[in-house]
């Protein structure tokens, strides 16, 4: 079946612009995660949804970052007034509860470059 998809794959924004990044999780997956990956580093957790509820947003770097998942499926990560330090790859992952630990399935990411 289809995996996690993200769009756009690449986004170039001028400093100060708002951007919206989309994630389509695997159909039926309850949990959705956003991570930020700086160049040469591992991903860092941003936020977690269970269905439409945002249960953890402790990793969002500032109040310019906002995520939503209104119908419990597609999610959007919005960054307002982008800054150069926001340049990174934004990864989305989804998982579904099951026996044992939950494997997170990652999308290809959106590479954001802020000029």
């Amino acid at each position, binding site marked *: 079946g289809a995996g996690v998809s993200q769009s756009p794959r690449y986004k170039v924004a001028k400093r100060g612009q708002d951007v919206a990044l989309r994630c389509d999780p695997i159909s039926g997956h309850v949990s959705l995660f956003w991570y930020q990956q700086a160049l040469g580093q*591992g991903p*860092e957790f941003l936020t977690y949804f269970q269905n439409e509820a945002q249960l953890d947003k402790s990793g969002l770097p500032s109040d310019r970052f906002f995520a939503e998942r209104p119908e419990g499926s597609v999610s959007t990560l919005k960054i307002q007034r982008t800054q150069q330090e926001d340049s990174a790859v934004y990864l989305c992952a989804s998982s579904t509860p099951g026996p044992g630990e939950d*494997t997170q*399935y990652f999308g290809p990411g959106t590479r954001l470059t802020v000029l």
Partner: protein
Amino acid sequence: SQQGEEDPQALSIQEGENATMNCSYKTSINNLQWYRQNSGRGLVHLILIRSNEREKHSGRLRVTLDTSKKSSSLLITASRAADTASYFCATPRMDSSYKLIFGSGTRLLVRP
């Protein structure tokens, strides 16, 4: 903040050779996971080892875990050019197991 640190940061080997990557972590864990990331692609889950396991195999992959040393190793045997990628270890936080904490990765280059 990063939980795990991979070693080495970069590794270059000839096709057919074995590749070993190490991961050290700081706090107690329930499990440790290894992921692969190809250039331009997302992370792919490779293998999960639980804290009560010492070794696990999956195809050409062998993972070991030493909880007393807070370290894990990933061995790729008979490497192929297609194994060229970055490899990350990740551990879920004990207090919020959905939150994966990744290391900084090992960049593996397999020369044909």
